[in-house]
């Protein structure tokens, strides 16, 4: 039989696109509830200040105002702290310092944008006007912004309970083994680098509507979330003390997330609580400036690392010391990002036998930092791939060759790294070879020479990365400090006529799940893809779910769907065996038909579904009617997408402008369900990776004022900043999930930054330049060239 054109592996066009292409998407701010009021949140203009008094009387009297609330009002109602979902332990085993996080600040504000009061009025404008009448007496306090400053003795203290501004001081690996490796090293390569702070900037600003039904006592929160069940759990259980049975969280179409919409934010709690107080729906929509000062930021590491090598360039040991900025409060998953999503990836694709990393997480008077596309893995990859290039250059070994010498061999799986992870499959030589060919690595010297004639400096850079996705086995993450399980749930509801609705706990905010998941079901149940609908985002409809992040939706959420389909097929076989008067063991299910093996006697999937719902001829003594199954899938391991990215840049030495002229990505994302969607995920990720490498940087001044507080000041890639990105895949299957899938959402953001910077350093190598920090802006590149020329002249 020919492969289906709507099944696994087909470039099926996206089912969700019609509504988006015609302006009929439904985002939170598009929703209007009857009697809806509008919230404006008054925020701290100071990075650090004591709140001495708040006077809301004038604002309360303003036209259109229904209520004004402060942190004291929420405290009176016993509103709890926004919880942190992950506890990391210090080197000595003691728990991290975990300060409280009230939704509205009570006696102190700790970053610019910290919410202080909420004005609720009958229009956005009335609320905003009235907010100007709220009088807040602040006593400004000294602020601290950078991790380097925050750890100095005498630095301003963000939290009294966190001396030295330390959240935790954590370690992983075998320190003694690493010391021994360094003692016998032929060469030690060293690097110090900054992983620049990023602002996620999903195109849709966050929004939330709280709604309360006094008749039933039920609350509904409409929110821009990647994981509505997680929000229901955290907000219901820890903040507002509303039982799940009385709280519905609905995340409809969400306009991009990239991690920033995972977390439980203050505004969600504020509008839900306020709706209960004023007994009317309350809507809040972020202005872009609020996104900049409240959406959790990403990255912000300062790292020193050393790699010990033997005479042949084999890696003997790796030593890493990182300062990670947590911002002013602990966001939902912040503590795990620079630890279990970062340092556990420091083996990369290499056989480095001894690794030791220590990470100190630091509070500052800045927006909380949490997972942003890649979350920890881009930081690990950037560090490692830069350091490997430094070592290659210093030892005069070709950067491709040094990687080959250290790759984990294709036959070495399962491979246990010295930093906890066990890789299940991969073929790093294969992705490298494919990328070298696709990028015409061999032809580069000719291109460099041609560019030189045009006055351009051309460089080529490579990165061979790995990441851990499909988070995660619940017992493993539980042992590491996670306060939640990380399985996924799916319900497959077969209707009487054989059409199917799937309810998934994952959430699509651009990923195309309505298509990819439908392909799984069309193939798995042998029905046309038109007969499959995917429902996500609504806790009132979906059994449960942990949501979408960490490239987990297919590996974990897709596997849950497969498990639920398995149950459907098992039950279908029982029904078919009754209808066909054959032994259950003799029933085969294939291409949508239940057949008695070796005969032409069969029942279609739709016939079996109808029998289940109209059980006139049905084994009612043994089997319940209906055909509707739920599965919870807890993964056995992480998945390990890996690959090779190659970047070519041209630099104008007179202006410092860098242009990415070629970019090649070869990724092993496991089995590909929809190649068109995978290509888009990789290209989008690479674009964000190039953005980090060349353009994006979140800057605070020394007083904690956000200098890059708008899209006019914070530069993201535009269409004319980017090249075409050549994407291909090389597949090794994940060995432990039923689909063999690994995940593709983050590979671009992980693989690209070091490829770009390695290319820039290569282009500038004739000046003796060995490193440049991200973002490699024209100013930075130009200055590096000028400094190098001065040094050469001296």
């Amino acid at each position, binding site marked *: 039989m020919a492969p289906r054109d709507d099944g696994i592996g087909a470039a099926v*066009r*996206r089912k*969700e*696109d*019609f*509504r*988006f*292409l*015609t*302006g*009929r*998407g*439904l*985002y939170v*701010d*598009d929703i*209007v509830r009857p009697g809806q009021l509008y919230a404006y949140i008054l925020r701290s203009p100071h990075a650090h200040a004591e709140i001495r008094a708040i006077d809301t009387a004038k604002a309360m009297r303003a036209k259109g105002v229904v209520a004004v609330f402060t942190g004291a009002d929420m405290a009176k109602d016993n509103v709890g702290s926004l919880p942190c979902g992950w506890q990391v332990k210090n080197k000595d085993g003691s728990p991290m310092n975990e300060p409280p996080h009230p939704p509205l600040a009570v006696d102190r504000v700790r970053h610019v944008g910290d919410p202080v009061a909420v004005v609720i009025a009958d229009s956005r*404008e009335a609320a905003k006007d009235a907010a100007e009448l709220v009088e807040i007496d602040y006593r400004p306090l000294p602020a601290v912004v950078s991790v380097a400053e925050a750890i100095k003795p005498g630095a301003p203290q963000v939290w009294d309970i966190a001396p030295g501004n330390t959240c935790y001081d954590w370690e992983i690996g075998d320190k003694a083994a690493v010391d021994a490796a360094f003692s016998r090293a032929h060469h030690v390569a060293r690097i110090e680098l900054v992983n620049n702070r990023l602002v996620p*900037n*999903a*195109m*849709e*600003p966050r929004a939330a509507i709280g709604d309360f039904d006094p008749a039933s006592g039920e609350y509904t929160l409409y929110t821009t979330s990647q994981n509505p069940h997680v929000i229901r759990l955290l907000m219901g259980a820890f903040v507002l003390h509303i039982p799940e049975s009385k709280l519905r969280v609905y995340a409809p*179409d*969400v*306009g*991009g997330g*990239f991690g920033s919409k995972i977390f439980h934010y203050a505004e969600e709690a504020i509008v839900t609580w306020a709706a209960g107080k004023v007994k009317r729906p309350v809507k809040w929509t972020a*202005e*872009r400036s609020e996104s900049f000062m409240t959406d959790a930021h990403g990255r912000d590491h300062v790292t020193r690392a050393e790699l010990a090598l033997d005479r042949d360039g084999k890696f003997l040991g790796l030593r890493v010391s990182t300062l990670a900025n947590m911002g002013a409060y602990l966001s939902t998953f912040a503590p795990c990002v620079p630890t279990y999503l970062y340092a556990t990836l420091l083996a990369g694709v290499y056989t480095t036998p001894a690794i030791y990393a220590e990470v100190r997480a630091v509070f500052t008077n800045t927006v909380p930092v949490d997972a942003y596309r890649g979350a920890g893995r881009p930081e690990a990859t950037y560090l490692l791939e830069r350091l490997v290039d430094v070592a290659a250059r210093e030892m005069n070994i070709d950067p491709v060759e040094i990687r080959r010498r250290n790759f984990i061999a294709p036959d070495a799986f399962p491979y246990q790294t010295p930093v906890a992870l066990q890789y299940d499959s991969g073929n790093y030589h294969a992705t490298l070879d494919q990328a070298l060919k696709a990028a015409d690595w061999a032809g580069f010297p000719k291109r460099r020479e041609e560019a030189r004639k045009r006055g351009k400096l051309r460089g080529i850079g490579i990165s061979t990365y790995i990441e851990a996705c499909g988070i995660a086995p619940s017992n493993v993450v539980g042992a590491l400090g996670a306060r939640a399980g990380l399985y996924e749930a799916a319900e497959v509801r077969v209707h009487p006529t054989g059409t199917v609705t799937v309810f998934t706990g994952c959430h699509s*905010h*651009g*990923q*195309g799940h309505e298509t990819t998941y439908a392909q799984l079901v069309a193939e798995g149940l042998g029905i046309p893809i038109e007969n499959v609908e995917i429902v996500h985002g609504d806790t009132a409809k979906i059994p449960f779910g942990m949501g979408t992040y960490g490239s987990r939706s297919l590996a974990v959420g897709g596997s849950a769907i497969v498990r639920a389909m398995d149950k459907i097929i098992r039950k279908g076989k029982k029904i078919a065996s009754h209808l066909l008067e054959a032994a259950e063991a003799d029933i085969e299910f294939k291409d949508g038909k239940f057949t008695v093996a070796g005969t032409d006697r069969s029942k279609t999937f739709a016939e079996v579904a109808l029998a289940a719902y109209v059980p006139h001829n049905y084994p009612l003594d043994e089997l319940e009617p209906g055909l509707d199954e739920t599965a919870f899938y807890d993964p056995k391991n992480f998945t390990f997408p890996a690959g090779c990215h190659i970047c070519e840049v041209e630099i104008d030495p007179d202006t410092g402008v860098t242009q990415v002229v070629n970019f090649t990505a070869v990724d092993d994302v496991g089995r590909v369900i929809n190649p*068109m*969607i995978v*290509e*888009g995920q990789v*290209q*989008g*990720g*690479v*674009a*964000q990776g190039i953005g980090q490498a060349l353009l994006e940087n979140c800057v605070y001044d020394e007083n904690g004022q956000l200098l890059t507080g*708008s*899209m*006019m000041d914070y530069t*993201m*890639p*535009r*269409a*004319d900043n*980017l090249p*075409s*990105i050549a994407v291909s895949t090389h597949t090794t299957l994940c060995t432990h999930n039923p689909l063999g899938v690994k995940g593709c959402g983050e590979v*671009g953001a992980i693989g690209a930054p070091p490829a770009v910077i390695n290319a820039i350093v290569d282009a500038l190598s004739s000046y003796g330049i060995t490193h440049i920090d991200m973002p490699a802006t024209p100013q930075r590149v130009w200055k590096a060239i000028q400094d190098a020329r001065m040094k050469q002249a001296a």
Partner: protein
Amino acid sequence: MEEVATISVQVNGQRITRTVPVRMSLADFLRQELELTGTHVGCEQGICGACTVVVNGRCSRSCLMLAVQVDGGTVETVEGATETGRLKPLQDAFYARAALQCGFCTPGILLTAAEFLDEHSAPSRAQIREALSGNYCRCTGYQAIVDAIETASASWRRPG
């Protein structure tokens, strides 16, 4: 008192008369008064292009205009341009190429691309990228969008 004004404007071919606050933006007018929520507000500063609509025949940032400024004029949104079929070749090409992910920037990009194709036959990819450079997309990396516009250009009927 909130100062108001009565405006009369043709929106997607329909004559509409409304009394609006003078400080109401065109984007808010379309979204809140007319419930045309296909126009999205991404930055309120004219940078991201998500709010792009066609005002008096030209692509404009509806977040930077006041509703009172379109008094006596015409406005076309993604809903109207879908209804008339003006966007069809682009919508087909975007669908065929998955040139959208979260969909938030898509309406603004479609209208921008339509105006561009009205004025350029057989554009180069570099020209397409330049034309798109006023519209942020955070999801796709733009490549599929460039591909789709290139495809649509082949069948695009430029206004005579």
